């Protein structure tokens, strides 16, 4: 491991991307992820790598499409309204089997919303924000150090499966400073070769990157290839954290920043005799349905807490499938619930 650094979440994601071998980064400024862009602007050119401040979010994701097509590791970042603009490019990346990392430091919505933390882009991230039958791996970090770890994982998974991977953070995670230890930079030469990439066809047949076929049967085959890949990811890449759940009567299901707050709530609840646990999905897609279902067999209540109107709640209910009660508590508009407000919700459901 490298030196211990005190950095903002946005900077940690940027620095982790650099150490993961991101050679090309393209983005457009937006709050609350501007520090990410600025960190890349300072460091990428010095390393001889590409930083382009694009004309728009659409331009940035299109540049990512171009760079990804040539086989280099590439990333863009933005926040909610900007991620909406990137959906065209994300769909094309998915359809063309291109690896790329997209960071969404989520802010309050809909529309212009505000710049306060939110989790209101969960649907967009996990259910396919763009057009077509596609999926994207979505990773939900809960702390600043984990944001760094998951950024590195995002590049590895993107390459392994030739798929866009999203880091779904939020404004709180982006702005918060924590001590982190980041790994040494990867040796770019050690990364697996990409024989499919468009690099110039010298000595081989041309490589063609595309997401379309006018023939329905052919396009169906292309879709079946995607679906097979998604099944493989569902089978191999589900990640989650379960804590204090062995004797729990109630568990909180939460991701990202809220899961971190929920850990304090677990301590407070247990201090007053409530047997509370936590279930935290790390992969928001693929969602850990099976582990949550197994947990639901052992508890009375799965309380979903989110900074949204109940988006992940739908996945929780799909997983729990009536095996336990599934109440919901959420805040919207950039309001971050305190441990005490969540504890009060827990108390309502404690026997």
């Amino acid at each position, binding site marked *: 491991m490298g030196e211990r650094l005190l950095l903002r979440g946005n900077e940690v994601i940027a620095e982790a991307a650099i150490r993961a071998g991101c050679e090309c980064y393209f983005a457009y400024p937006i709050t609350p992820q501007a520090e990410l862009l600025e960190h890349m602007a300072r460091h990428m050119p010095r390393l001889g790598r590409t930083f382009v401040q694009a*004309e728009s979010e659409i331009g940035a994701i299109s540049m990512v499409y171009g760079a990804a097509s040539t086989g280099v590791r590439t990333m863009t970042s933005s926040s909610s309204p900007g991620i909406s603009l990137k959906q065209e490019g994300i769909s094309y990346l998915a359809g063309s089997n291109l690896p790329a990392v997209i960071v969404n430091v989520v802010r309050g919505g809909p529309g212009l919303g505000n710049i306060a933390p939110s989790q209101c882009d969960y649907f967009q991230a996990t259910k396919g924000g763009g057009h077509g039958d596609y999926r994207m791996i979505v990773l939900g970090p809960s702390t600043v150090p984990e944001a760094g770890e998951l950024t590195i994982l995002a590049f590895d998974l993107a390459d392994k499966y030739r798929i866009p991977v999203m880091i779904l953070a939020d404004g709180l995670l982006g702005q918060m400073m924590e001590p982190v230890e980041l790994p040494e930079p990867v040796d770019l030469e050690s990364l697996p070769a990409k024989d499919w990439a468009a690099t110039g066809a010298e000595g081989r047949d041309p490589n063609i990157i595309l997401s379309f076929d006018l023939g329905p049967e052919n396009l169906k085959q292309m879709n079946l290839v995607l679906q097979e890949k998604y099944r493989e990811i569902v089978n191999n890449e589900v990640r989650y954290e379960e804590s204090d759940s062995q004797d729990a009567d109630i568990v909180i299901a939460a991701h990202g920043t809220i899961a971190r707050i929920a850990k304090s709530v677990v301590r407070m609840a247990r201090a007053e005799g409530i047997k509370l646990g936590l279930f935290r999905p790390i992969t928001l897609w693929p969602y850990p349905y099976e582990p949550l279902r197994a947990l639901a067999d052992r508890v009375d209540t799965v309380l979903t807490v989110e900074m949204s109107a109940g988006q992940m709640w739908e996945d929780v209910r799909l997983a729990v499938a009536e095996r336990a009660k599934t109440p919901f508590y959420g805040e919207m508009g950039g309001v971050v619930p305190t441990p005490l407000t969540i504890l009060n919700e827990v108390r309502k459901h404690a026997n």
Partner: protein
Amino acid sequence: MPTDIANMVKVFERPASLTGARFTYCPGCSHGVITRIIGQTLDELGIAERTIGLAPVGCSVFAYLWYKCDALQVAHGRASAVATGVKRARPESIVFSYQGDGDFASIGTAESIHAANRGENITVIFVNNQIYGMTGGELAPTTLVDQKTSTTPDGRDPTLFGYPIRFSEVIAQLDAPAYITRQALYDTKRINDTTAAIKKAFEYQVEGKGYSLVEILSTCPTNWRMTPLQSNEHVENVVTEVFPLGDLIDRG
């Protein structure tokens, strides 16, 4: 007198950089000629093996099929941004985008202007036929005043739909581009001029001189409701009045 095959000289053949795949274009459309010129240029400069071509959305969506080089099919209007990503990632490659007028000068306006303004070292082939060919002949940003299209059935009324945009002139206002020119294909001289322009545009990229844009006045006999001959005469006599031919910038 029997033909003496052994002594015949081959003066014309398909460029080695073209695959020979059958074109999907309508009879009389200029896309095929432009494709051939690009293939010939890749041959002459010996760059096909390090070229990455970008196919747009529209009639030339299959452009990746024609060239023996790596290629990407990209989203409508985004080719200049995608080309930026390709070229920045692989500066040693030769990158060209092939874009129609709807693609380059309407839906891709922002991407087109800003790639030019950054002086990206790429070559843009901008095919201007004043209409949306593939979708059925709708109004393009370049459609002439009073020209009938499927969405301006009474002709383009500039008070409602604006005027044909001279997009190359817009880009020529920028400081960065190395070469901007408008060419046509309605007679042999113009085809030769276009060939020279495309060659220069690729040469500038090879030499690292920066952004080049070759606009080509093209024909769409199908949607113009004209014969190929009438189409060529229309370009010569009418279209060039609105879109004058010649170099707009040459900073080589």
